[in-house]
């Protein structure tokens, strides 16, 4: 093989198109389609008394109006509960259009289809809905209290509840020499991709075929759900995913109400119908994540070794539970991180509130779990006056213990078994990268200048590449062009490039000759979707296996033609030749020609096709069938990759912050990442994924917070009020990599998409705490929040760290404390 593509920092092939405005996102399609707009509930909790659509029918250009009763057949049933986890005690889902009750502001109540969006919006404004108000349940505390209920069928507002345990945490806590309890608070945020959701449905009346373009993370999921909802044979539905302007999790939920309604409208009207979510709609009618209250009690010895840990997570899952409990499951299990927890008990209580639904956002519950664990480890270090990295090291799972069974079930229902990783080595790299041991000198220097700085750390392990499977199809055309298809979708991860790199190596062709299609059920119907950092692991391996099949067939045919053992053949730059022959005539054959020969022809449509006709190859055996038994025409390979369980990536972040002594402004001075996602297909793309993750992690730690008022109105539903980091807020990011290959898959890779986000809040809280000298137990933290904490601290309402930087350390390491620093009101 000439140049190995796997591992090379190849420039992304999708970019020239995208930088010149040639990206085709959902709203760039469907010129001339009718457009839909939705009437949405302005109330968080109310009964619908009456809907009067007559005003809308008078608006010129309106084609049709739908309410719940107009939805045909099963389209009017509740939306599916996609992941029916056994811990769900009450799984309530919404309707495509609200039936008799609304449960959050933004819930769709009616749909107008009109000649354009302007008309549709005007008509929506003319629809009158009478509501009878019900009490709104907002926030974890109100939900937990249970005085008012979101759904009568969910007593205590509990949707799901689960205890998982390894060892005996309660006994271990009782006998531990030291104990601490932490009460923590993690606020709501949202994925907020630059492109919102969108759907374009076309109904071919003659063929009875529905084609739906959707800005989704799962083409096959939307297809199956729409076929079921609209009572269509699967073969009469296709879903195609165009360029997608970011997903980060929110676009994995399906079918969205709008996907059902718009498709139903297209069928009913026999016209193309399109809906594109506007920004405000995205805030109030897609999905949020992250909101949790958490309590952790840890018992540990004098060395800081964790003896027992007991955690409860109260998780706010919003008005409905369509995506199940993946988020709190991940929090509960991935909380363990790189540590040996022999006695660990975790309970999550997943609660209904009258707010937007909760589905995974990059990290999917892991940032919250890691926050609990890392805050706990820092608290242990503080209580004992030990270096925070030392306590971590003493609790690490070591490389010789791999594979390591955590003893809990992962979110896919399989055992949580870490396949590989070298946490001590990662930590050593991180300490060197950030200059951990030199930091005290730097702090002194800064202090002398009147500056306040702090150093923080966050470690995590992330289960990536969960099943059940993905598929790959590789086809070599007679021109030498290689077509590759996989079913999962792309939202900017560079799949066209990395999958082409894999195939180029596996087949021995030039990477330019490989063309990749994702997210098109017409090309690959069997698929799951893009989430859980799974695309490279799942489709990458499936495509590699498919390419190997195509290669095997190519070598078999070439071996026949060249009359050599296929094992003596190699493929370089698209030419099959006898290894070491120099590729002269008689010892080599272009792959394109092999493709010609693979498909016996009757008709010679061009010069090259002649060779495949019955008169083209005089040597063929007149008694043998042209296509041998057990063979198929064409040079193709198809295969699936289905791992028994997830592969676990890991990493560690260190961050240096400066906090302004007067204004409490928080500035990140340095951000360092050590990341291990196994073998890297394309380091440039991995780096980009890490950067993006960190940017969202920084946002989650310092800026992003969705604020509801007690009546359930989202107060900051705009880019102006929901703060996300711009270039001015994201620091330079320093990265170092470790590559411990996964033993679980042929390519040895692990996922990388969510890594950057997961430990950011933990690491930044750690750094701010280190700078300020009092504990940080709630995130995100704004300058105002920090200023309030300083006031509480000065007033004696918030204890100092025992060994915090500003106190200079040196307290009694044997101090035992049950007097947990409670989170003061001001911090919530």
């Amino acid at each position, binding site marked *: 093989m000439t140049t190995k593509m796997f591992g090379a920092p190849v420039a992304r092939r999708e970019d020239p198109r995208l930088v*010149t405005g040639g990206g085709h*996102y959902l709203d760039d399609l469907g010129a001339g389609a009718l457009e839909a707009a939705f009437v949405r509930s302005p109330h968080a909790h109310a009964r619908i008394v009456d809907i009067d659509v007559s005003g809308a*029918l008078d608006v*010129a250009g309106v*084609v049709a109006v739908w309410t719940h009763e107009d939805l045909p057949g099963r389209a009017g049933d509740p939306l599916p509960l996609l992941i029916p986890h056994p811990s769900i005690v009450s799984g309530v889902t919404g309707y495509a259009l609200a039936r008799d009750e609304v449960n959050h502001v933004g819930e769709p109540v009616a749909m107008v289809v009109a000649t354009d969006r302007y008309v549709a919006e005007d008509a929506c404004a003319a629809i009158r809905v009478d509501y009878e108000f019900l009490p709104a349940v907002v926030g974890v505390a109100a939900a937990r209290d249970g005085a008012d209920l979101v759904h009568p069928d969910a007593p205590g507002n509990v949707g799901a509840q689960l205890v998982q345990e390894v060892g005996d945490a309660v006994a271990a806590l009782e006998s531990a020499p030291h104990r601490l309890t932490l009460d923590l608070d993690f606020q709501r945020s949202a994925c907020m*991709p630059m492109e919102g959701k969108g759907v374009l449905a076309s109904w071919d009346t003659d063929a009875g075929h529905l084609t739906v373009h959707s800005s989704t993370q799962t083409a096959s999921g939307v297809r199956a759900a729409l076929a079921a909802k609209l009572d269509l044979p699967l073969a009469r539905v296709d879903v195609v995913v165009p360029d997608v302007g*970011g997903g980060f999790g929110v676009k994995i939920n399906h079918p969205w109400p709008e996907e059902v309604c718009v498709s139903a409208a297209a069928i*009913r009207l026999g016209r193309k119908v399109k809906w594109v979510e506007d920004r405000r709609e995205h805030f109030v009618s897609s999905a949020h994540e992250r909101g949790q209250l958490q309590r952790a009690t840890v018992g540990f010895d004098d060395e800081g070794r964790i003896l027992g840990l007991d955690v409860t997570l109260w998780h706010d899952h919003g008005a409905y539970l369509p995506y199940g409990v993946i988020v709190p499951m991940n929090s509960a299990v991935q909380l363990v991180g790189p540590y040996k927890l022999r006695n660990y008990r975790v309970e999550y209580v997943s609660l209904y509130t009258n707010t937007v639904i909760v589905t995974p956002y990059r990290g999917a519950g892991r940032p919250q779990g890691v926050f609990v664990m890392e805050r706990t480890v820092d608290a242990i270090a503080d209580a004992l006056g030990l270096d925070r990295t030392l306590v971590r090291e003493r609790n690490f799972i070591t490389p010789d213990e791999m594979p390591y069974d955590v003893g809990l079930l992962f979110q896919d229902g399989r055992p949580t078994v870490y396949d590989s990783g070298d946490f001590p080595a990662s930590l050593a790299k991180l300490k060197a990268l950030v200059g951990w041991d030199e930091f005290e000198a730097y702090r002194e220097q800064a202090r002398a200048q009147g500056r306040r700085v702090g150093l923080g750390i966050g470690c995590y392990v992330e289960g990536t590449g969960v099943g059940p499977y993905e598929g790959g199809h590789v086809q070599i055309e007679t021109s030498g062009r290689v077509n590759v298809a996989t079913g999962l979708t792309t939202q900017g991860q560079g799949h066209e490039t990395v999958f082409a790199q894999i195939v180029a190596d596996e087949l021995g062709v030039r990477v330019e000759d490989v063309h990749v299609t994702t997210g098109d059920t017409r090309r690959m119907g069997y698929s799951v979707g893009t989430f859980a950092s799974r695309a490279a692991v799942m489709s990458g391996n499936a495509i590699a296996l498919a390419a190997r099949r195509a290669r095997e067939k190519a070598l078999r045919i070439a071996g026949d033609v060249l009359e050599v053992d296929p094992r003596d053949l190699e493929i370089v730059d698209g030419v099959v030749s006898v290894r070491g022959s120099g590729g002269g005539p008689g010892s080599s054959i272009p792959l394109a020609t092999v493709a010609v020969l693979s498909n016996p022809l009757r008709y010679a449509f061009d010069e090259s096709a002649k060779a495949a006709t019955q008169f083209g190859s005089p040597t063929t055996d007149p008694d043998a069938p042209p296509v041998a038994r057990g063979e198929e025409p064409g040079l193709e390979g198809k295969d699936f990759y289905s791992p028994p369980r997830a592969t676990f990536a890991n990493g560690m972040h260190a961050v240096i912050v400066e906090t302004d002594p007067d204004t409490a402004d928080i500035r990140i001075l340095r951000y360092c990442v050590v990341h291990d996602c196994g073998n890297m297909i394309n380091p440039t793309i991995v780096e980009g994924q890490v950067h993006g993750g960190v940017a969202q992690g920084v946002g989650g730690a310092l800026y992003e917070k969705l604020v509801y008022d007690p009546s359930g109105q989202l107060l900051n539903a705009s880019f102006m009020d929901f703060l*996300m980091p*711009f270039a001015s807020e994201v620091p330079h990011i320093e990265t170092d990599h470790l590559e411990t290959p996964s033993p679980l898959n042929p390519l040895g890779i692990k996922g990388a998409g969510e890594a950057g986000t997961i430990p950011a809040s933990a690491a930044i809280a750690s750094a701010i705490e280190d700078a300020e000298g009092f504990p940080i137990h709630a995130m995100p933290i704004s300058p105002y929040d920090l200023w309030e904490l300083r006031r509480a601290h000065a007033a004696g309402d918030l204890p100092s760290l025992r060994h915090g930087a500003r106190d200079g350390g040196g307290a009694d390491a044997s101090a035992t404390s049950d007097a947990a620093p409670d989170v003061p009101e001001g911090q919530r």
Partner: protein
Amino acid sequence: MATPAAPLPPRPAHPGAAGRVETVPVRLRVDGVDRELDLDPRVSVLDALRDRLGVTSVKKGCDHGQCGACTVLADGRRILSCLALAASYDGAEVTTSAGLGAPDRLGDLQEAFVARDALQCGYCTPGQICSAEGMLAEARAGMPSHVSPDVRDVDSPVELTDDEIRERMSGNLCRCGAYVNIVAAIGDVARARS
């Protein structure tokens, strides 16, 4: 619950609904091509480009002037096209990302974005590139920013440090978080052009 008759045929326009608005003629030169429009005076440059002219090389992220995805150049200056009324840009020369290069002959900023891996989903990218183009012109003309050492100095070209670039690009949101490389790409071009 009232039941609407669905579906309904389109109804004729009536006074007070669509059609009531007087239109104004608007001429724009878009990416080098002269275009003529008859527009409701409330139509933004963004909607005029995307919905009326089918120019999709400019994207909509918020429609409220808060994300920069819709940035184009109007007579060489960067504007948020979702906040600009087309009628007030009559006669303007509008440049989108498609006017700055094509896949087979990328402009220098586009080249730098590709080389530096300064994008992921690409949705913000046309706006980032137009914004950078406008920003480089502002810096060349001596326009100071919030982080410039001397904001009274409005004559000498600004040296575009990373902090200057970050500050000057801080109206363009990239939710994929490609900022580190966006800043690097623009820095490369700033240095190459000076």
